[in-house]
């Protein structure tokens, strides 16, 4: 057993990657660098107070105004109650109700974890289609070299920012599980490695929701959906053979062998 290491607690950010990197040598992946958003309650409160929820109704668009508070909630730097109270105070109408409903997913997943324990790391239910999944994350996915500009961008954003818009998370999960036939746990592990908000409850249960082992049907998308909610970010210049370019009915038959 290695001797315990004590770390100073007054490291300024400019020394943090070097000193923490040396203290944690062998215990992390990638290069030692600061997170894209600063951690801590002070930073979390600043982010909370700066967020008005203006335009939250467009939250499903990648350019929509989402709070990006999840990493602070995940680590207890902010509490669900104070974030809800802030939303009730500064937001109005349907945007407020929708934000509070989204916040409630975090509580729901925590309570499912309390109820199920380590079982959330395995299929809670059988998948709702004849799935045959492989266990391993393909190298081209991990390396953002699939040849699909959108899918490569999702992995690149994940690794660079430690955060993904919820729609990017869903698209990537559906691509990996349904199109590539990979067990959701390989995607869960990749997200856990990189997401600043990655925790067991939200992460495992969201993957299971897409995979249909914790939902009534698998989540999937088509090219039109990606194009619309990304504002054409990838599709307008894309020359790849798009595996998502079909109607929902056609894709459902192709992926799951059924028609609605």
């Amino acid at each position, binding site marked *: *057993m*290695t001797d*315990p*290491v*004590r*770390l100073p*607690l*007054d*490291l300024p*950010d400019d020394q*943090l990657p070097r000193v*923490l*990197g040396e*203290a*944690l040598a062998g*215990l*992390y*992946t*990638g*290069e*030692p*660098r*600061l*997170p*894209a958003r*600063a*951690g*801590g*309650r*002070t*930073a*979390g409160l600043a982010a909370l107070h700066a967020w008005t929820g203006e335009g939250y109704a467009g939250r499903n668009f990648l350019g929509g105004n989402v709070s990006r508070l999840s990493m602070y909630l995940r*680590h*207890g*730097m902010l*509490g*669900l*109650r104070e974030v*809800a*109270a802030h939303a*009730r105070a500064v937001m109005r109408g349907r945007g407020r*109700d929708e934000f509070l409903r989204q916040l*409630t*997913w*975090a*509580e*729901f997943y*925590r*309570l499912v*974890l*309390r*109820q199920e*324990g380590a079982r959330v790391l395995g299929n809670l239910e059988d998948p709702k289609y004849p799935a045959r999944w492989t266990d391993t994350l393909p190298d081209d996915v991990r390396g953002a070299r699939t040849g699909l500009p959108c899918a490569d961008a999702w992995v690149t954003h994940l690794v660079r920012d*430690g955060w993904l818009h919820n729609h990017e998370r869903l698209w990537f999960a559906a691509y990996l599980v349904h199109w590539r036939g990979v067990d959701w746990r390989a995607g869960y592990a990749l997200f*856990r490695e*990189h*997401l600043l908000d990655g*925790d067991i*409850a939200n992460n495992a249960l969201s993957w299971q929701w897409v995979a249909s082992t914790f939902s*009534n049907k698998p989540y999937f998308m088509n090219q039109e959906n990606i194009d619309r909610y990304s504002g054409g970010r990838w599709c307008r210049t894309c020359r790849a053979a798009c595996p998502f370019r079909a109607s929902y009915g056609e894709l459902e038959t192709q992926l799951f062998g059924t028609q609605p």
Partner: protein
Amino acid sequence: MTAAQARRVVWVHGDSLSVTDPALSACPDAPALFVFDRPFLQVVPVAFPRLAFMYQGVRDLAAHRTGPTEIRVGAVPDELAAFAGAHHAAELHVTRNFTPDFARIVEGLRAARPDLRIVIHEPERLTSFDGPLRRFFGFWKKVEREVLHGEPAPDFPRRGHR
């Protein structure tokens, strides 16, 4: 500082990185410890920015509390046991989380220090719902009023759906 407080320590884990954490709030003057879990990190890949984010969280709470805060790298139950011993603590306070790792660490600590009283504080909840769960939609129907308005419905049913 009272004698009782002098004999307490607090375990700060990755779900409680705030000065408002219930265990920290209950023991504002007690020494607190956060541990980067070496055996866990040796087998579970975690990118550096995630660990730096957590360090920043501990640094921030240390700057905002009156009691001393420490951060170490090692096996969590061993470090907690050593920390409690060094401070002659009779009690270790912590806020519960629902991960399997939490239960494993508490068991390890109980085995290492059967004399140490472990006081587990409940984490903050958004709702008061305590029934069984299956789908979000059913849960939302039960808690909608409480979440939207910040107070439980007068006839709030404390039972599950389905």
